[in-house]
Structure formats: structure tokens, C-alpha cells
């Protein structure tokens, strides 16, 4: 019966961890807002998690758009449908690749940094010292990082898609000779604002919520040793990536799967 007890212990451990994560989230975001204090802190964090992630997002978006155009062209040209390259690139990016790849890059670039930063603050007793100074670390440390992630990631996903579409234009139109007018006009007539753009933004907002929640919780709950912080950082990237991919299927089914 030891295996049964083992399963029970693991389940209780996971549930209690989920409970702690939920309490942390509620403590951080369900509180009386302190705009004067929190806005500058949030702006600082938007710079750290958003602006500093721009380079990797722009470069990745550009190359993914270029590869999509190259691959798409080789298939579409066989049917004489290379004029549909624009909507193919745009829809793939706006609906799927923009939110998902941005989320995976965000988890690796900003999520891991958040976990390591908060974990180190715990290890160097900065979180304890905040508590002893009667300053709630959930509101001072976790809340600005949470809102910064929620604001930054949808913007990064839109930038990723926009740069990807331009990358597709460079390869499809400038290099392979697809007509520029049909690239843009068919894209304009095919892409729907609500169904494609807004759904993509909703997806990236959901991914942002999950990534920032996991990243801040893993840092806040980490064992304050070098090994503990290393483990927490790794878990942030692995759990966030898996959660993003799993949620993407669910969201896609809800948004596009049932007509």
C-alpha cells in the first residue's frame, strides 16, 4: 500500500502548492490599489519584462515570418495560389504563432528572470525585511511584476505578428516576386478583426496570466538556496511552456474549433 500513500502524498503536496499559489495571487492583485505607489513600480517592471524582451521578440518574429513565407510559397505556387501568401502568413501569426511563440520566448526570457529575481530576494532576506518594515511583499514585489507581464505580453505578441508579416513580405514579395498588392489586399479582406486579431490578443493575455503567475509563485515559494533557485527557474520555464501549449489547444478549440 506504500504506492497508494505515495500517490496521496504527491497529490496533497500539489494541491497545497496550488492553494499557496492562489493565495499569493489573491494577496497580490485583490487588494486596494495604490496607484501613486504602484504605477511607477509597474512601469519599471514593464521596462524589465517587456522592453528588454523586445529584441528577442522582433528577431524571432522576423525569421519566423520569413520562414513561413518561404515554406508557404513553395506549397502555394504549385497550385498557382501564391497570391494567398499574405493571408496565410498573417492568419498563422495572428491566430497561433504570435501568441504561442511569444509566450514561449517570454517564459524563457522574462519568466525565468522573474523567478530568479524573486528567489534571490528571498535568499538575501529582502522579502523578510519588507515584511518586517510593514510593507507587504505581495503588493510591493509581486503585484507590479504581475501587471507588467499582463500588459507587456499581448503587446509583444502583436509586435511579433506585425514583424512576422513584414518578414513574410520581404521573402514573399521582395525576394520571390509575389505581387505586393495581392499580398496586402487579400490579407486585408481575409483577416477578421474580432475573430483573428482579438482572439490572438485574448490568447496572449491568458498565456501572460499563466506565465507570470507560475514565475512569481515559483520565485516566492522557492527554497532560498542556489540549488532551490536553480530548480525553481527551470520549473518556471518547463511548467509555463507546457501550460501554454496545453491552453493553446483548449483556447483554439473554443475560438475556432466549434462553428
Amino acid at each position, binding site marked *: 500500500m506504500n504506492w497508494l500513500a505515495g500517490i496521496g502524498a504527491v497529490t496533497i503536496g500539489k494541491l497545497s502548492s496550488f492553494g499557496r499559489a492562489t493565495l499569493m495571487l489573491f494577496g497580490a492583485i485583490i487588494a486596494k490599489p495604490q496607484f501613486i505607489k504602484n504605477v511607477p513600480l509597474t512601469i519599471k517592471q514593464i521596462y524589465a519584462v517587456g522592453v528588454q524582451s523586445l529584441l528577442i521578440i522582433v528577431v524571432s518574429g522576423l525569421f519566423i515570418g520569413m520562414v513561413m513565407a518561404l515554406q508557404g510559397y513553395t506549397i502555394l505556387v504549385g497550385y498557382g495560389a501564391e497570391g494567398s501568401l499574405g493571408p496565410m502568413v498573417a492568419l498563422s501569426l495572428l491566430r497561433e504563432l504570435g501568441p504561442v511563440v511569444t509566450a514561449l520566448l517570454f517564459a524563457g526570457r522574462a519568466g525565468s528572470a522573474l523567478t530568479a529575481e524573486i528567489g534571490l530576494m528571498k535568499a*538575501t*532576506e529582502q522579502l*523578510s525585511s519588507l*515584511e*518586517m*518594515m*510593514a*510593507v507587504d511583499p505581495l503588493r510591493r514585489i509581486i503585484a507590479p511584476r504581475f501587471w507588467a507581464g499582463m500588459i507587456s505580453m499581448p503587446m509583444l505578441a502583436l509586435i511579433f505578428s506585425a514583424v512576422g508579416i513584414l518578414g513574410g513580405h520581404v521573402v514573399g514579395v521582395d525576394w520571390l516576386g509575389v505581387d505586393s498588392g495581392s499580398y496586402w489586399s487579400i490579407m486585408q479582406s481575409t483577416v477578421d478583426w474580432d475573430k483573428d486579431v482579438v482572439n490572438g490578443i485574448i490568447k496572449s493575455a491568458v498565456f501572460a496570466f499563466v506565465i507570470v503567475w507560475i514565475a512569481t509563485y515559483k520565485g516566492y515559494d522557492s527554497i532560498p538556496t542556489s540549488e532551490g533557485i536553480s530548480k525553481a527557474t527551470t520549473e518556471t520555464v518547463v511548467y509555463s511552456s507546457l501550460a501554454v501549449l496545453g491552453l493553446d489547444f483548449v483556447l483554439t478549440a473554443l475560438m475556432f474549433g466549434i462553428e
Partner: protein
Amino acid sequence: MENLIEIDNLSFSRSGRLIYDDISLRIQKGKTTAIMGPSGIGKTTMLRLMGGQLTPDSGDIRFKGESIPQMRRKRLFEVRRQMSMLFQSGAMFTDMTVYDNIAFPLREHTSLSEDLIKTVVQLKLQAVGLRGAAHLMPAELSGGMARRAALARAIALDPELIMYDEPFAGQDPISMGVLVKLIKALNDALKLTSVVVTHDVTEVLTIADYIYILAEKKVIGSGTPEEIKNSDSPLVQQFLQGLADGPVPFHYPAGDIKQALLGSNS
């Protein structure tokens, strides 16, 4: 003499290990109380219990007669404004200058103008001898300077109680002398109540008004420095004289070495 903190019949365990077993302490107002004991017996844990960061299994901790474990979070945060803690690592915020670190509690808890905050910060830094280091980042400070800067931050709001967690650990003799002088001077000048957790016997005997020695989950000795020096408890004497072996054994509990080395052939 009025007590600022009263601890009664406190028991506390962590991860299934009993740290304190039914201990009682009194921290007198306006005095320096030292809590001493061997490494690993949970001296820092005691400070965290006093600050309400940990909750005891049983017993009570009262600050000015009010039970800390029973307090709601909001009240606990109000009470914490009257206490302060100097952490072993200093716990300076690494993304702020020394100036901003000391201004931090003032900006959080007061509505003072920036001009007034500047005056207070400069006075606090002057008190610890670091006014010239206001512009430095914590990473640019030596260990002793970081602890002095943290001390300036700890006294920024003029607390009634200040808790020192191993203030002398890892300090060179000069830094140690400076810290001893500072703790004593601040205590006298600001009429603070101080709790110093340490195992540096010589230093603490010069500044403490009252000493508790903790070991084996209990208070094994208490009294004025003179009473402690003259204690007839072998455990207290082993601690004071730094003897390698005694009631606290040199060897971590293990089986017979002959048996371990020779196995079943012995």
C-alpha cells in the same frame, strides 16, 4: 521594570523537528537583551517569532501586552512599524542606492516631503558614519558598511524595538568594534529596546543588560552578564569558554567506530 515583549510557554517545531519546547522569556523595555546559544538552535527563529513572521505551535508572544500570534494581518503590520530588524545579511535592496534604502521606510509609511526625508536620511547616515556613502549601491559596500547602512535603515522610523540578527557574524575586529559601539550608542541615545541574537560571547557581554542562553530547545541559563559568567551550569560554561567537548558533544550522534570500520569482523 516594564516588559516590552513577554514570551510564555512557547513551543515551536518546523518540518517535524522541535525547535523550542515550552520556553519563556522577558524583554525589558529600554534594555539590551542578548539571546545566545550554539549555531543551529534557532536563535534567528526566535526573532522571526517575535516579529510575527512565524507562528508558534503553542504558547504566547505578547508585544506591549498584545498577543502577536493572535493579531490580524493589518494589526500585525501596524505593530511592525514600532519594531525593526537588522538582518544578518543586511538585506539591503540591491536595486536602490544606500540613500534610497534608508528613505524607503520613510516614503512608505510617512507623508514627509522629499526635503524632510533628505534631512532624516542624512542624520541617520551620519549616526552610522556613512553620510559620504549615500550615493553608493549596496554591492559597492563592504560587509561592515552594509550592516551599518542596514542599521541606519532599521532606525529610520525611530522604532521602539530593534532586533539584531547575528550583527557581528563575519566581521573583522574593526567593524565589530564599530558595530558594538553603534548598538550601545543608539540604544542609549534613542532609548531603544534591543534584542541581540548572537554567539559572540565577548562582544555581547559588554553591551547586554540581560542574557538568555538557549540550548537543547530550552533556556539553559539567564541573568545579567555577571550572573552568567558565574553560572555553575556546565552547559553555560562550555558555551562561554568555547570548549569543544562537554554537555554539547563534539561528535554528532553515531554508532560505534570500531563496528563501523571493522564491520562484522570485529
